[in-house]
């Protein structure tokens, strides 16, 4: 019996393999430049052009530029990686035009990396090799500490860091394949060989053969490749990345988002081909259920169950929708995945379509993400041209097609029934559930709506099995979650960690702690629908239930770090203003409730709070939670309730003492000049927009409190800390 799907997949990989081989990257120097919205904003396009100019001028044919998506290391963009065959890749941070010239002349032409500008530089020594020890906390078996032993061995033999560097990494995700022995996985770079070590003899052989002679040890090679091999190979040495476990983001920053060949070369569409070859949609659903994959949009509903429900419907006209209406302020993981690894999301959608028996799928993407829209459209076009979308996909007889529908700036459209209305061309107002969309959704037919990140995980689960995925997470939720780390934190960016990782690890170990040496006050998760986790609870494990218990939610994964400088009442007011403006106005509790809550919060921050306001806030919030029509209204009071719960003192200080402890609320502060410190430089007076600062040169100045608008300019510009905010 002929098996059309494997044949089709074979010809696809052959085609991709040939295209990759023709490029002959193995013998060329690759300059990798990121290309996504953040990178463009930081100037990566100019950098790429400049490199191109340098390459042309040099006349060298063995240097190529490789475009990739976003690695998620936002605060250090633009990042450029130089890969010389046989060497470890060297990455540079905050590259500008001048640095391009230096990198090109010193590193590429002169073989001497510009060590001063290396990403997260820890030492000036460029090592020949690197060994990464997997130290994933979940699967770490009791046994000898191989890494410590290896470091000791290096010391005994006086092998220095220029020869080999030892790095500890979090979970490789190969846990399932080790077969019970007490062993450790070690990734040797730049050879990209994964070793499995279970004794000291193994370790010695690795050192003597691989490290000292450069001869790989066949005997110790692991059978399976870790899922994020390519990612680890390129970025594994950087602490920001190797504390992460990348599954959904495994190709981000590795693959060219506009190249089908590169995606296929990284085992792209392998999961789809297996799913289609088995001709068993229930297998897909059972793997997802085993994986304990839960909706990454925030609801946390089991994806396997949802797909199963849609599949059981009698109506055979069914739809699948990818929710890319990422409206939460402070969340940008969906944009990054759509821009950096679009084929993976498309593959997840096709698999989903097959599993539930849909004929058509829709990407609903917000219009504010032009690059994501462009890349997804390109991916869809490529897939159509190669028989991966349209009629008879991969020769399996399955017909399915995808199209993009644009959002138009309405936060409520992230709610599934509102999103359906919007695709239908209506005002995006939610409907009462049930019926749930899996029963009656788009145009009245069964519809599955999943978040971008959910789809990003699907192909990985099918390739590595549901059990493997479940092992990475917690009891109740499998796998990893991507967080968008932003706010007052040293390293902002995208962080993918196993569910169950502590907040503190994300913020302190990966994020590098609070910026400016300030104290951590709280971590906000879940955007306007979420709440605050106070610093005292930072050892909490990140998962759906613990977050909910603390009065917050997982949400789509925004994580905003707040420092001692932030006023909780003010931030709660910020979120309430957001929800109030985004309320669609259909139901009264949400429309009126958010407005009144906002009024009370405004009153409090203006110093006009009344003693009974806290009770009123409580009552209104509960009412809004209980009686609103959709998730927006039900979740809108969360920031208020959780800030009252954890930071009641701050509210009381505002209401009773008319004092803002964080000195943020303009109405409750004023500025004074400390006469002893003021040297009379006149800078403050010159920068005052209302000219309320008076004083002669070289004499202490005075602020006219009546005229002062409290803009804070003087406070910011004074170089002598002579202005006090009280």
């Amino acid at each position: 019996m002929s098996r059309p799907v494997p044949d089709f997949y074979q010809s696809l990989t052959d085609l991709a393999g040939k295209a990759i081989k023709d490029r002959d990257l193995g013998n060329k120097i690759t300059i990798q430049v990121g290309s996504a919205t953040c990178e463009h904003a930081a100037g990566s396009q100019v950098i790429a052009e400049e490199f191109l100019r340098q390459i042309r001028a040099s006349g060298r044919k063995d240097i190529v530029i490789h475009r990739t998506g976003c690695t998620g290391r936002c605060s250090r963009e633009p990042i450029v990686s130089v890969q010389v065959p046989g060497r470890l890749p060297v990455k540079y941070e905050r590259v500008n035009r001048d640095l391009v010239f230096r990198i090109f002349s010193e590193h590429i032409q002169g073989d001497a990396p510009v060590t001063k500008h290396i990403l997260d530089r820890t030492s000036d020594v460029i090592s020949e090799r690197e060994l990464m020890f997997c130290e994933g906390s979940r699967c770490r078996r009791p046994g000898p500490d191989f890494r410590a032993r290896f470091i000791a061995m290096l010391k005994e033999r006086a092998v220095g860091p220029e020869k080999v560097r030892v790095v500890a990494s979090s979970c490789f995700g190969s846990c399932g394949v080790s077969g019970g022995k007490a062993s450790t996985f070690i990734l040797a770079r730049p050879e990209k060989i994964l070793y499995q070590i279970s004794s000291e003899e193994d370790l010695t052989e690795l050192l003597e053969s691989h490290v000292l002679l450069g001869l790989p040890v066949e005997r110790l090679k692991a059978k399976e490749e870790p899922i994020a091999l390519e990612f680890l190979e390129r970025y594994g040495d950087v602490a920001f990345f190797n504390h992460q476990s990348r599954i959904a983001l495994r190709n981000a920053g590795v693959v060219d988002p506009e190249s089908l060949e590169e995606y296929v070369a990284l085992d792209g569409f392998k999961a789809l081909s297996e799913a289609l070859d088995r001709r068993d949609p229930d297998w897909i659903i059972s793997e997802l259920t085993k994986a304990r994959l839960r909706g990454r949009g925030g609801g946390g509903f089991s994806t396997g169950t949802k797909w199963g429900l849609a599949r059981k419907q009698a109506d055979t006209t069914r739809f699948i929708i990818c929710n890319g209406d990422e409206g939460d302020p402070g969340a940008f993981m969906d944009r990054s995945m759509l821009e950096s690894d679009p084929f993976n999301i498309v593959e997840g959608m096709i698999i989903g379509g097959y599993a539930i028996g849909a004929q058509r799928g829709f990407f609903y993407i917000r219009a504010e993400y032009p690059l994501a829209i462009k890349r997804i459209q390109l991916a869809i076009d490529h897939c159509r041209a190669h028989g991966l979308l349209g009629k008879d996909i991969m020769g399996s007889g399955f017909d399915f097609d995808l199209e993009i529908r644009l959002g138009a700036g309405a936060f409520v459209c992230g709610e599934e029934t509102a999103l359906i209305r919007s695709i239908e061309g209506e005002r995006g107002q939610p409907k009462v559930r049930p019926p749930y969309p899996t029963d009656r959704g788009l145009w009245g037919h069964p519809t599955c709506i999943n978040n971008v990140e959910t789809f990003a995980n699907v192909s990985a689960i099918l390739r590595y099995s549901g059990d493997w995925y479940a092992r990475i997470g917690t009891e109740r939720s499998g796998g990893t979650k991507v967080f968008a780390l932003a706010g007052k934190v040293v390293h902002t960016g995208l962080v993918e960690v196993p569910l169950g990782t502590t907040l503190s690890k994300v913020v302190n170990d990966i994020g590098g702690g609070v910026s400016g040496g300030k104290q951590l006050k709280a971590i906000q998760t879940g955007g306007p629908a979420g709440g605050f986790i106070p610093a005292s609870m930072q050892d909490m494990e990140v998962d759906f239930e613990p977050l909910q218990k603390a009065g917050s939610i997982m949400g789509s994964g925004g994580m905003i770090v707040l420092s001692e400088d932030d006023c909780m009442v003010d931030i709660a007011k910020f979120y309430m203003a957001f929800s109030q403006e985004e309320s669609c106005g259909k139901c009264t509790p949400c429309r009126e409730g958010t407005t009144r809550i906002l009024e009370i919060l405004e009153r409090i921050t203006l110093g006009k709070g009344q003693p009974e306001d806290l009770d009123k806030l409580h009552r209104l919030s509960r009412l809004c939670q209980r009686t609103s029509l959709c998730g927006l209204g039900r979740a809108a009071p969360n920031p208020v309730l959780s800030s009252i719960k954890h930071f009641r003192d701050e509210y009381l200080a505002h209401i009773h003492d008319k004092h803002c402890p964080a000195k943020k609320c303009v109405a409750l502060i004023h500025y004074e000049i400390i006469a002893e410190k003021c040297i009379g430089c006149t800078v403050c007076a010159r920068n005052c927009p209302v000219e309320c600062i008076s004083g002669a040169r070289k004499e202490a100045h005075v602020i006219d409190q009546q005229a002062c608008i409290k803009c804070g300019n003087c406070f910011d510009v004074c170089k002598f800390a002579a202005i006090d905010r009280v």
Partner: protein
Amino acid sequence: MSACCSSTDNWPELERGYRAMLPEDILAFIDENRQMDRSESMLIATLHMIQGHYGHLGPGHLEAVAQLMQVPLAKVTGVATFYHYFRLQPRGKYLINVCLGTACYVKGAEKVAQKLMDELGIRYGETSKDGIFSLESTRCVGTCGLAPVIMIGDEVHGPLTPGQVPTLLDSYLARAAEDLAAASAPEAR
């Protein structure tokens, strides 16, 4: 919805008038969609195209869309006013969008916005007298790592301090002046 458009006697004449209000590619898009099932679901996409072409949605555009797509004008207006992304007023050459997402907010977006307002002499929703800049605020452009950011046209700028605002505006003024010179150059010849 029936394929035949109208019961009015002067429909051909009306249709000509409405067709004259929209550019060719959008007319082609509408015609193509009318062949499809559930063509009214393409309303938002159509409005996106018109705004992309003209920069805003004028009353005439909405009426033309309603007539040509055979959707009630009330619905077209309802949709156009529901979504924040659609603008019903013309705007300046460069639209400045100040991101007021959480990350930008805690990192001082308001001060940047204040500086923009001071420099341009306009508030949110207004256009500068020379017609070059319009100022709007937006909810999170998704580049939180660079906070605080503003978007001018399609370009994202960040992290910004209020002090950088004048230089940034000047660069766009220079660009606008260049465009103007380029546009008038052929006439001079």
